[in-house]
């Protein structure tokens, strides 16, 4: 579900070369796709793609619809963070627990393994 975010970010990164190279991208558009990929996509350092992946990773971390559709919401088996929060919100007085779950996910990197 987060794939468009990734593609869009990468495409913007690639097309930004047009500015940096003083308009050489105009000629590049008359070239073949392979030549364009060689000159532009391959010219991007790895850090560009890493940064593009961040938005996609964040979206995938909170992915809800596809997860609960395809692998259901089995606690301890296929339940993800967002599905767990959804489950908590479905029980009476569970909103506070859901909020806590959000806080715990935020702080999970500080908890002992």
């Amino acid at each position: 579900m987060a794939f468009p975010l990734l593609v869009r970010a990468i495409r913007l990164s690639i097309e930004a070369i047009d500015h940096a190279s003083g308009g050489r991208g105009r000629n590049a558009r008359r070239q073949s796709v392979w030549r364009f990929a060689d000159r532009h996509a391959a010219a991007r350092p790895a850090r560009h793609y890493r940064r593009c992946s961040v938005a996609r990773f964040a979206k995938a971390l909170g992915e809800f619809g596809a997860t609960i559709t395809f692998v259901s919401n089995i606690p301890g088996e296929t339940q993800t963070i967002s599905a767990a929060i959804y489950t908590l919100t479905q029980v009476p007085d569970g909103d506070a627990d859901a909020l806590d779950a959000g806080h715990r996910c935020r702080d999970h990197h500080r908890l002992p393994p």
Partner: protein
Amino acid sequence: MTIGQGFDIAKLAGDGRIAVGRRERRAGRAIRQGGAGETRRLGGGRTEVRAWLRTCGQRSRSLHAARRRLGIVYETDAKVEPKVKTIATFPDDSASAGHLSSGRDSRHNEARVSRQYLSFLRSPAAKAIFEKYGFSYLDQAGVVRRASRRVFELSPQDWTAVQLSLRVAAVSTVVALPFGIAIATVAGAQGFLGQGAARRHRPSAAGAAAGGDRLSAADHVRPHAAPVGAFWPTISASCSRSAGPARRWPAA
């Protein structure tokens, strides 16, 4: 010997001293320093003694360090220390009945250790140890227990959810990255309808340096292929500083 109302601790001490703890001195600090609690000659009025008794729980180790024959220590410490003999116990409803509590340090570097310590305190092993040495386990202390559970506890199911989310996100990102690069490359190489108009109005230092002739970028784009693309020069002509670009595209 029974401790109760009207108990004369000064008489018990005689001409010696009694080792008592001090309120503001934390147990951990006293142990680390190996120091004794406050010692004080008891001969004063009852109010003074009573004030001391309220805060008098301390470690038996500090009783040794103070070289006192008599002192007021935690019952649990007295149990594990063979040299200490219990002569009397404060009643449970007295102010001196100690309540141990563990605090959480908000500083980041100590928070991790604090959480590990707390998780151990809640474990069955710790409960067995506590009960062995005379602590009663307040399982029904609702508010405190609930608050600590909220902040610190993650059940195995919760951990599974966190790990699963992280794993799914990481794997899907790695898998999607090559496809994303490929599709973005193709899309970037092909352009899109109306791209010429969009490029023309995009700020470009290179275009400005070339004398403002930025329209050549759009020469290969069909300007009338899309309604908005065809409509755009009409709109922008009135806004643009130069009417040149609009004239290049014949009206639809």
